[in-house]
């Protein structure tokens, strides 16, 4: 999967979890999405795992709070 495909799929997953987010891009961070708190982050992780059919290292992924960081993680660790 190319990085661009990962970005698209990641943004789709964000929309599924948080609904429509104004100006959602790779640069978006938890500061920009009010609903992106610790508990919703768990739901986001579960949805991303389903979307990309992979298991994340939970201790690593819980500290990533921006779209670009998540994309980079999936790009580095995905299938």
């Amino acid at each position: 999967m190319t990085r661009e495909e990962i970005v698209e799929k990641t943004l789709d997953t964000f929309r599924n979890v948080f609904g429509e987010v104004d100006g959602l891009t790779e640069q978006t961070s938890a500061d920009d999405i009010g609903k992106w708190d610790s508990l919703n982050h768990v739901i986001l992780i579960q949805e991303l795992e389903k979307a990309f059919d992979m298991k994340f290292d939970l201790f690593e992924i819980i500290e990533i709070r921006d779209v670009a960081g998540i994309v980079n993680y999936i790009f580095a660790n995905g299938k």
Partner: protein
Amino acid sequence: MNKSLVNLFGFYRATGISPSVLLLDENGFSVVCGEENRWPQMVFGLDFSENPAYFLDQVLSETKAQNLPGFAVCSAALFGSDELQYLREKGVFPIRTWTLMDAVPSIQPTKIFRENIQIRKIKVPAEIAVFTNLVNTELMQSVKIAGSLLNELNKTEAVNIYGLFVENELVSGLLAFTEEKTTGLYFIVTKQQCRGKGLASDLIGYVLNLCRQKSEMLVLQAVQKAVPLYSRLGFSAREKVVIFWKQ
């Protein structure tokens, strides 16, 4: 037991002022539950000797059954990939990690205070309100801390709140909680527009100096990105702790 965890536990016990404090020390767990809408409401895992994942799930299931928030703070070192997988199957997920750091307060602060900066203890309710707003805006997510709680805590001997003012505006602050000759620094916060200027370093340096007489140890919990900053101020990383939550 790690002094950082002891202080953290004491701090939460103090901030979770409530008649419903339940101790399960014989199992190595202490459960702290605040009244509804008070902060924080957590379960603390302090000592797991065997099968920590099973034990953690049991405790979180029990607290959930009692309609208490199912959060637990534990040492991250207890949980390898097998344990995390087990917990995941039980709906228990890590949601945050911190690094516990400590310092002996004889370390000299490296910063020199600047002329337009004033650092002092915050006492009056109006200033506490500004500090509370700063904490809630810059640090807290869905759970906010009440100004009345900080006011209440600030009247106790254990708690001191310090603020850094630039031209009389409070732009950085922290809460120091002292118990058994250990002081923990919590709610270390700097207004977003004022970050990256060394203000928090100035503030912590000031508190390090103040605590030299009454505390043998200073502790704090750092998010990963702040570890280098605190290391420069003389703090050493001791261990990583993790908050677990049961869905």
